[in-house]
Structures are given as structure tokens and as C-alpha cells.
């Protein structure tokens, strides 16, 4: 791998940038791999990366129906935080957040992790108590958060109107080392690192069937032919139930549209990420200057990657209420992605009824922040058959009723 650095840039600048190699190879698939990962989004690529990095398993193919990073990895609002309430969530999201801290250096690819801080606003007494509870839980979980006063909120976000009139800000849960990162770069950085380890990233390759023999996975049929493997990881978000069906089992999952929008870029005016659950909306400012805004999910299932306008309207209203100055900004673009939502809105990282096949899905509205932690844990699960981080996220929890419900702490999207 040609290392990226300012010196490499300077060298290439002298020769018309002709010496940059491909960031990742584009090979034809081999007949058989030790591990095949289906889905080259952030979670799939991270899974492959940690299989190689932590367990030395590099005879791996990551196969992708479209283009890598083209699903929710490239459509989200890039928020990273780990201030979750329940122990299993806090464990995996904090692992993830800590991996983001050094991701640029680990991958030699600047993913622009910006630990600028995340505030979740409390605008009802009920929310105040909820976030105080989260702060207590986080202290015991090793997640650094604090409940801050309205004055401190105002100091951190001068453009916010904390005085209502409808929902005055009563405080906020502040995670100073939460923040954002450049979403595409996360996928590209992992892809490049995987490719460098000798893994094959195969785009434009759709899985059409899962092959099994005696209850054990043996490979997949794809649009580029049969690919055999010893272990199979399904990391395909909204299409997980379809993949599971090919393997003969069911997953408790619904796919719904989640939308986001950006304003035109403006000069820096907001340095932290703000989430306002009472009024339903969240906002941060990208390095480019756009206000990046996210809202709620549609009320019906679909796969179209676009949503209903009234959600955009409600979100924008909520944010005008919170940040009156955005009223005179303009919406540049709105878009949608399909999020895979489970019964308890927590992810599934699990063995399956098919031996050797594993699933990693159900990240719903909050998957971006989990990418490295999810990959780390999934790799451990696939390599060792057990991971403390995935233990509680097994698909069997739905049968037992052992849900991991975060809705207490994060009303809307998270």
C-alpha cells in the first residue's frame, strides 16, 4: 500500500498525481474463501478489517450488490456518540467511539473524526430525569457524559434559543468526546485497508442464494457465479430479512425510510452536535459548512430510499424552533435511506440457525456511529464463536423477551 501523507502528496504533485494507485483492488472472485462477508457498507468492511487485523483471517471476500459504502454508510448524518442507557448498548457503542478516535491513524486514511461534542437536549421534566439516569448509568459503564445546565448549553451553542417559547431547554446530556466523521471516508478507508491485507472487495455482485449442506453454510450463489466459503457474514442492513430467507430463517426486522437534509453551506456557526428529541430533530455543521439535519422515520415500510415530505417539514420546524437563525438558510438537498429496525430498536449480532452463518444488522437509525465497534465485535464472534460485546444482541433475545430497549433514553432517531 502506498502510504498517504503530506510527503506523498508533495511527491505526487510534482508528477501530475500520476503515481497514485487504486485505493482498493477490483478482482474477480476466487472459487472459495475462508470467510465471505455480504455487504460492503461500513459494518461489513469493518468486520472484514478486524477479521484480518485481530485474527489474521485474510482469505476474505466482501461482496456488494451495488457500490461500496452506497447504503446507509453514505446517507447518514454522521453522528458519533456512546451515551446509551443500557449496558450492552453502552459497551458496544463506547468501544466503537473509542475506535473512531484512532481510526485515521489505524487506516492511514483521514476519516476526519471530529470529537466536537454531542448535546442531547432535555426539554421536559421527564427528559431531564431520563438523561440524569443515563448520566448515572454512563458513569458506571465507563462512558464520559455529564448533565449540563441550560446556561452551559447556551455557551456551547450560541445560536440556540434556549428560552422556548414552547419547549424551553432545561438542560442537556453532554458527551464531550462524541462528534462526527466523514462517512464515505470510513467505508473507503476500511476498503483500502482490507484490500491491502489481500482481501477481495467485489462490487456489482449480487447474492442470489445462500448455499448450505446439512445445516451448515457452504457458500453463496451470486450474479458473478458461485462463491464458496467456510463462514458467511450477512451485513446487509435493510435487506437482512431477504438474505435470511435465502438461508431459511426469519429475522424480526422492518425496513423503513429515514430522511435527512442539508442547508447550503455557511461559515462556521455551530461547533457541536445537537439532538433535540422532544421536538424531533438533530443538527450539526459539516466541515463544508452545511447544516446537516436529520429527523424521524416514516410510519410505513418501504425500500425506495425516499420518504414523505411531512417528516422533513416537521424536522425543519423543530429546528427553526430550536435554532431560529436557520429560517433564513435554504434547504439544498433532502434524501432518504432505508433503515433496518428491530422490535426493540437495538441491533442483532448473532449466530444463526445455519451453522457458520452470522448476521449483523438492525442498526436502525443509529448505525454509523457503531461501524468500528460492530466490525470489531462481529469479527470476534465469527472468529471465536463468542464475543462479550455481542452476547446480549443475539437474535434469540426476541424469543425470550430479553429486549435491549433504548427508547427511554433516545426517543426518536439515534
Amino acid at each position, binding site marked *: 500500500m502506498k502510504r498517504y501523507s503530506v510527503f506523498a502528496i508533495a511527491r505526487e504533485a510534482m508528477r501530475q498525481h500520476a503515481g497514485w494507485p487504486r485505493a482498493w483492488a477490483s478482482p474477480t472472485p476466487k472459487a472459495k474463501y475462508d470467510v465471505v462477508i455480504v455487504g460492503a457498507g461500513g459494518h461489513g468492511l469493518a468486520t472484514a478489517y478486524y477479521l484480518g487485523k485481530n485474527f489474521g483471517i485474510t482469505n476474505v471476500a466482501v461482496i456488494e450488490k451495488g457500490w461500496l459504502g452506497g447504503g446507509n454508510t453514505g446517507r447518514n448524518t454522521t453522528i458519533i456518540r456512546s451515551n446509551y442507557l443500557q449496558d450492552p448498548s453502552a459497551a458496544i457503542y463506547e468501544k466503537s467511539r473509542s475506535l473512531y478516535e484512532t481510526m485515521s491513524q489505524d487506516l492511514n486514511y483521514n476519516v476526519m473524526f471530529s470529537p466536537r461534542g454531542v448535546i442531547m437536549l432535555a426539554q421536559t421534566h421527564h427528559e431531564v430525569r431520563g438523561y440524569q439516569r443515563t448520566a448515572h448509568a454512563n458513569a458506571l459503564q*465507563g462512558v464520559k457524559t455529564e448533565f449540563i445546565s441550560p446556561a452551559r448549553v447556551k455557551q456551547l451553542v450560541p445560536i440556540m434559543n434556549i428560552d422556548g*417559547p414552547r419547549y424551553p431547554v432545561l438542560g442537556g446530556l453532554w458527551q464531550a468526546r462524541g462528534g462526527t466523521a466523514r462517512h464515505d471516508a470510513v467505508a473507503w478507508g476500511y476498503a483500502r485497508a482490507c484490500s491491502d491485507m489481500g482481501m477481495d472487495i467485489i462490487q456489482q455482485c449480487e447474492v442470489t442464494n445462500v448455499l448450505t449442506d446439512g445445516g451448515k453454510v457452504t457458500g453463496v450463489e451470486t450474479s458473478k457465479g458461485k462463491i464458496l466459503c467456510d463462514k458467511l457474514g450477512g451485513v446487509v442492513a435493510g435487506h437482512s430479512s431477504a438474505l435470511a430467507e435465502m438461508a431459511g430463517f426469519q429475522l424480526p426486522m422492518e425496513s423503513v425510510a429515514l430522511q435527512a437534509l442539508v442547508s447550503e453551506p455557511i461559515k462556521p456557526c455551530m461547533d457541536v452536535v445537537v439532538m433535540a428529541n*422532544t421536538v424531533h430533530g438533530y443538527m450539526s455543521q459539516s466541515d463544508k459548512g452545511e447544516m446537516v439535519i436529520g429527523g424521524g422515520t416514516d410510519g410505513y415500510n418501504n425500500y425506495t430510499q425516499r420518504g414523505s415530505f411531512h417528516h422533513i417539514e416537521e424536522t425543519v420546524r423543530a429546528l427553526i424552533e430550536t435554532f431560529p437563525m436557520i429560517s433564513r438558510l*435554504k434547504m439544498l438537498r433532502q434524501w432518504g435511506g432505508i433503515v433496518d429496525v428491530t422490535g426493540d430498536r437495538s441491533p442483532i449480532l448473532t449466530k444463526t440457525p445455519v451453522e457458520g452463518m452470522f448476521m449483523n444488522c438492525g442498526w436502525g437509525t443509529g448505525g454509523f456511529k457503531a461501524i468500528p465497534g460492530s466490525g470489531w465485535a462481529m469479527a470476534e464472534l465469527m472468529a471465536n464463536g463468542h464475543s462479550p460485546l455481542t452476547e446480549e444482541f443475539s437474535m434469540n433475545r426476541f424469543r*425470550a423477551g430479553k429486549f435491549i430497549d433504548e427508547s427511554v433514553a433516545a426517543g426518536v432517531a439515534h
Partner: protein
Amino acid sequence: MSTRLATAGRLLDRASTMEFTFNGKRMQGHEGDTLASALLANDQMLVGRSFKYHRPRGLVASGAEEPNGLVNMGAGAFFEPNQRITTTELFEGLAAESQNHWPSLEFDVGAVNAKLSRFMPAGFYYKMFIHPRPLWKHVYEPFIRKAAGLGRAPTEMDGSSYEHFYAHVDVLITGGGIAGLAAALAAGRAGADVLLVEQTAHWGGRAPVDGAQIDGLDGDTWVKETVQALESMDNVTLRNRTMGTGVYDHGYALAYERLTDHAPDQDGPRHRLWRIRARQIVTATGSIERPLSFAGNDIPGVMLAGAVRDYAVNFGVSLGDRTVVVTNNDDAYRTAITLKDAGLDVPVILDARPTADGSLVQQAREMGIRVALGKGIAHVNGAKRVTGVSICLQAGEGSEIEEIACDAVAMSGGWSPVVHLWSHCGGKLIWDDAQSHFRPDASRPPLGADGLGFVVPAGAANGAMSTAEVLVDAFQAGAAAAKAAGATGKTGRGPTGDTPKEEPMAPVWLMPQGASYKLRSKMWLDYQNDVKVSDVQLAAREGYESVEHTKRYTTLGMATDQGKLSNINGLATLAGALNAPIPAVGTTTFRPPYTPISMGAIGGEARGELFQPLHKTPMHDWHDANGADWEPVGHWRRAYAFVRGAETVEQAVQREVTNTRENLGLLDASTLGKLIVRGPDAGKFLDMLYTNMMSTLKPGRCRYGLMCTENGFLSDDGVVARIDDDTFLCHTTTGGADRIYAHMEEWLQTEWWDWQVYVTNVTEQFAQVAVVGPNARKVLEKLGGMDVSAEALSFMDWADGTIGGFDCRVYRISFSGELSFEIAVPASQGRAFWDALLEAGAEFGVMPYGTECLHIMRAEKGFIMIGDETDGTVIPQDLGLHWAISKKKDDFLGKRAQERDHMTDPTRWQLVGLETTDGSVIPDGAYAVGEGVNENGQRNTQGRVTSTYHSPTLGRGIAMGLVLHGPDRMGEVIEFPKVDGTSVKAKIVNPVFFDPEGEKQNV
């Protein structure tokens, strides 16, 4: 230099003069000018700086596609960044400032980036700023953020207002050019309800500029007559300054009307968002000209040929005295002819095609204009404005043949249909080889709920590029849309146009064809974001081969113009780099809005006090006037406490508790949900919804009930009163009323649709007052009326009657442990009844109390509160509520779920009372720690606090909590760490702290 011509300007009123300022400099324009044309008339070629390299930028276009002309406008509450000057109509006193430079537009320090551009190719930031780690947050990122962004951030609350309109039409036509007008004629004559919207202030689009002849009339005359004809049709509505912004599923569309942007002194809303349901949508959105990729194509003075023509014809403005035209098609010859006609010099038309002999070409030649075939521009000379061009062979590598002095360049790379609205909702495109553009594939339109297409492209937006073709295509489109929408009238004959014969264009994606890297690194694709041909080629080389990867890696098409000029050129460049056909590369996704629309318009009227509906009880005003400390609960406002004089809120709460326990308290309980459930199957229905048996409840009696979700979790509680055999009244929590109502409806409509039950939400039909305390009966007896004695109305009875002359329904229920009557009166009588209670209660020490007093009193009694003791993960069994779960029923919502392994796990945390050992109050949300840590290194816990208060009755901190094996550990002390590092210890006790025998309430 750019200047105002002595004659012409079809949109101008030369008699009126308007003053405006640009960067503080006073300038003049005319009514009818755009800010762009007025600036050009004042020789202001330089209008801004690019995003990345801070290159000097001039206007490239004349309409919505303009990438460079963006300004800060207005001041204070009316300040707005990133206003596109080509779509900004000039008004008296307009004040604009250019953006993204320091210290000034002319001398921008950031322009050093341009000098360093070789170190800043596409994606350079992914490859550097990696080490040392802390520098990204503290140095690199702040620097990049400051350099990026465009306009300034507004700082004040918006001073303008906005509104929404709703329209239901048969046919929505977007675009008021000749295509839209022709389509409207057809649809209007057919009898369809038509809404025709046009984004500019003028009808007719480009055709009059291009000298179109229609039905034997000149363009302007035909447009005027047609608009008059349409205005005279009752079924047709025309709106200019209204842009079709987006098409959504099921024929939903948005239009954005700019009402006072051009006249800020005018009263009324600034923008209006039209929310339209249309049976059919006709996209008559025209086409946009493409730039050509030659070195220096971003230097101010290089402009699209069509735009040069627009400025000359519409505004009487010339971009320069000597304009070189460079093209790959016949249309650009119109520009040369127009300029020549205006008395300006066109030294040469560089036509990249090897041959050209169409009628426009001949006309140009006849006018004495030199036409150089097979030639292109090697590079443009100049820095902040064009000084000349170097000519080369298109087929070569860029060797200079000749240098020509000029002060403007008009370029045309062909025209691309505006397919945004067609594509928003899934309409597919096909590549048209002859015209080298993507156009709508009529066989794959966006589909409505009926599986049929609901968008019809028309005119240039459909790839019909000549006036004659446009009129035929658009008239047919309008007729087809009307027919599909159900209109049956006759459309008659459509308008016909004359067009000079044009020869085919030739695709030119690189000029010259064999351009060197040096030239390619000066060819701009995306002007605003500084993406060059070399950047796209680098992306392709590095493996970012998908058009989406290229877009995201290079930022091509991600600027505020969303790639209206750059997308096709960019993907053609990518196709070239990948050696793939253009259609195989495809386009990026078209997303709404077509051009940016204000957040204010999206929000509409709903801001400030109108942000969300505010529910007020009939007694709201009294509360407000008597010290209410409000808290939002759902859409209601409830008084947290009534603060008197100088006391604090906390003191008020303590006073209210003590007074209610000792004398008499009044609670405005009107916000509690009240749902009437009625019908022969009402009992059966409630048996399914509640864990309790409700069907056995006797008329005249009340029962406390629990409702669970399908997953078994407790979701709401409340008192159910049986009114008669078929009728129940279910009380819900304040926050739960709408949710539970919807929950009931969902089950009735989707599962038990054959049951004879209906549900009515009467929450706001009644005002309800809880009359609570030892003196409660006394005040009611003083008011007089129905018998409220213990004998006549025992605990959990209800009765109808009158009190103090008010018709009322009295429920003998208690959430405080005191003698308590909850009395419902018609909402219209609520305030009068409240006043009567206060007056009569004066001698009994009456005081109203708020929600916090309510909470404390119920906690003292060990009553659970939905939302405190429950959080969506708690089942009734956790709360010791087994007594409220019927063992006799076969089924109820949650029953099966509550039998699952985890729900019957004996290690589930159970409800207990908690008494701090030092009398202090446990902090809200605290957890009780256990021994050691779990496998993930997290501290083990064994319980948590769910409600915690200082009890004035007991004079100490009390709490309720869920604790591992809690009920079996009475008397044990457990530890709750606080966030400050200290901790508080508490003893596990019975959750009923006060009057466990119920002596106070059962009197």
C-alpha cells in the same frame, strides 16, 4: 468590459431607475433587471470566489443553474446568505455583498490556495492531516471550516413570515415557457383543473429570446396572447415566481412561491410553499446549456452562450465588446448573430465540429462573422477577467495556432433537458446519442398507487429541442395528462412553430481532444466546488469508479447548484477515463428541491407560539394568573406548582403537599385522557386491552386498570368507570390520551374489526377537578346538591348529579391517599366550577396544587406513575401489581409475552421503597451498584431509583426503585453512587410510606 447597451432589453423598464449597493458601492439598474444583469451593466464582472481555491468568479449563467453568483443580502432579521443573483430581481435599496473572501473580493488571501492547487487535488484531505492525531480537531479542522462555507451565518430571528397553500388539481404543469403554456392550453381546453407554475417573473422562457415564431406571431406576442387565453379559463390557475421544487410519491408535489423577495416593502408572507396533490404532473422544465471543458473556462468573462444572449436580449447588457463564441452545435450561432446585430464584435466562432452548414451557420457567415471549423480553445488568457483566447485544433493536443484578443467568451457544449422533477420519484432516463444528453424514458415514468405513470415530460425537458418540436410535444403532453386525469373535453389544434434547420451537434467533452495534464488541470467542471477534469480522472484512476464514488470523492455536483452545469460533463469525463459508454456510468440521484428553498417556507406558519397546538384546560387562565409554574406534558401545559409571593418552587410544592394532607387541595385533572368505549362488545374489548377483568365491573363502579403492549410491557394505567351495560369511560394518563386512543383504534380497525365497539376521545369535553383532603366532603356539602356521604358514594363508586348547581359526575377515587372526589363538569363550566370550589373552600383552607405535589403524594402512598416506574421495559409483575392481572382471562394484550423466559426470570428487578439512611434525597436516575464488573468492564448494578422526592409529610427523602430480589431484602442497605463520585445509602423498605391501612381515604 460588460456594459449596458443603448437599445434593447425586452424585460426592462428603462424609464425607472433603481439604486442598489454591491460591497457598499452604489450602483444603478432598471426595473426588470436581475441583480446579475444590473451588476454586469455596472461592469461588475467579478462576483465571488470559489469554494476551495478561492478563484475569482464571474457569472456563467443567467438562471437557476448559476453556480458562482451568490451573495449575502439584507441585514439583521432580514439577512440572508447565498442568494443567487441571477434569480434575484432588483429592487430599490437592495444591498448585496460578495462572499467567501478575506479581506476583499478583489484581494483574497485565500487565493493562495489556487497557487497551491497542485497540492490540493481531489480528495487530498483524505491523504493528509492524519498526524499528529490531536491536530485534526484543534488545528486542521478549524482551519478548513473557516476556509469553507460560503455566506455568513444569519444571527437574528427571522423577521419574515411564511405560509403554506394546499392545492388539489388534475394537472400540475411546472414551467411557464412555451412548452408549459402549450401544455396548459391543451389540458385547459380539455377541461382539466390546471395549475401552471413558472419560477421566474416572466412567461415564455427562452423562446422569445431566441426569436421563435409561433402561429405566425413573434414569440412575445404569442406568449402574451396565450397567457391571456389561459387566464380567461376558469379551470386554469397561473402562478409566476413559483418554482416546482419536488415530486413525491402519490402525485404529491411542492412548489415554492417567492411573494415579496422582489418587493421587500410589500406586506404579507415572504414565501409560500404549495403542497399539491396532482393527478398528473407535466414537467415543462426546459433545458440547461452545458459548458465546454477547455483550460481557463472559469475566468470571469467566460459564459454560456445562451446566457450571453439572455443578457443582451432581456436586459440590454453586453458581457464584452469582443466576444469569441466556442461551440459544438448550431444554437450558439444565435448568440453570435444577436451580438453582431447589437453592434458588438464577434471576432470568431470556434466550432469544434469538422463541418457545419446549417442555416444559422450560413446566416452568421453572411453577416461577415468568421467561422473556424474543427477549432477549439487551447486556453483562455486573463486572470480576473478574460483578455483573449488561444486557438487550437480540436483534434490535437492544444498547440496554439493563433491568439485572439477578446474580453468575453460565449461557450456552448449542447443542451441537457432538466429532468430533476421527472427523476425525483423514480422516473428513469435514457441516453440520447444524437443530442448527447439524458432525457426521460417515457416507458419508465414514476408510478402512482395505481401502477400507472403520473409524470409527463414536455418540450425541451423531454429532449424536444426546436420550437416546432417543443410545441408539438408539449401540447400532446398536456392533452395526455388531462386525459389521464379524467378530462374529456376536446383540445383542438395545437400551436405550431417555425424553426431554422439545425445540423446535429457533436459531443465534445474535452477541448482539445488530446489535452495535456497541464490543460486538464485548468478545465473546470464544477465552478463553485473547484472540480476539474483532472480531478475526475484522478478519482477514476484511484478506483472511485462508481459515479457516486466520483461525486463524493471529488465533490462534483455537490455545490449549491447541485451540478446543474457540471453533472453531465463530469460523468462524460468519468466515462472517458473508464473507457465506458456514458449510459453505463449513469447519473447520480436527483433529489428535491430543484433549487434550494428557504427553511422558513418549509416551516410555514408553525413557529413560536404556533409551533405546535397548545392544549389549555378551561382553568388555564386562572392558573396563569395565580403563580403557575408551567411544565409541558404532551401538548398540554400543566402547573407544576402554584408559587405564592416570594417562595421558591420547591417551597410551594412542600406547602401544597402539607395543605392537601391537612386541609383541602384542588387539582386541575382535566388533562387526564377520557375515552368512551361503547357497544355490545365493549366489555370483551376492554378485557383484551386491560390486564384486569373489566367486563364484570358493575355500572356505577370504578376499577383501576393496567394496559400492556403486545410485548407485555406496562404502557398506561387509569381508572375505568362503567357507565351502563354497553358503556365504559376509560381514564388514561395525560400524556397517554392520544396514544391509547390510537392504540384502541388500531386494534379495532386491524384485528377486531368485526367487534361491535366504538371509541370516542372526550378528553377535552370535560373539565375535571380533584377535590382532595380531609375537608373535601365538607366543601362539596357546603356547595350542596347530590349526596356525597360515605354511605351514598363509597370508595370506587361514581355517580351523576349536581353540586353547587353544576351538572357533574363524581368519581370517588384517590391518587393521593386522602379523601378524594374527582369531579367532571362540562368543559364550558370548568372555570366557573373551579371558582365556586375556591370560594366555598376558603373557610376549609383550600389551595390548588400542581403536578409535583401530586407526584409526591402518590409516591408517599407507593402508587406507581407511568413514565417514572415504567420506561417501556417494565412489566406489571415487576411492580408488585399481580393483583391487577386477571388469572381468569384466556387472553389479553401482553399475556403471552409475560410468560416468556425473561419475563418470568426471578432475577428481574422488583419494586420496593427506599429510605436514605441520612434522610437526603437520592438523585434522579441513580443506580444501586453490585459487586465487581461485567465481561465488558462495566460496573455491575443491582437496582435503580424510579421516583425520588423529599417527603414533607415524613420530613425525609423517600424513593421508589426496582431492586434485584428487592421484596425479599427488606431492611437491607444498598449504595447509590452519585455522578460527583460520592454516594448515598438507602434502606430497602415497603413502598407504601404513608397510611398503609388507607384510613385517610376510606372515610
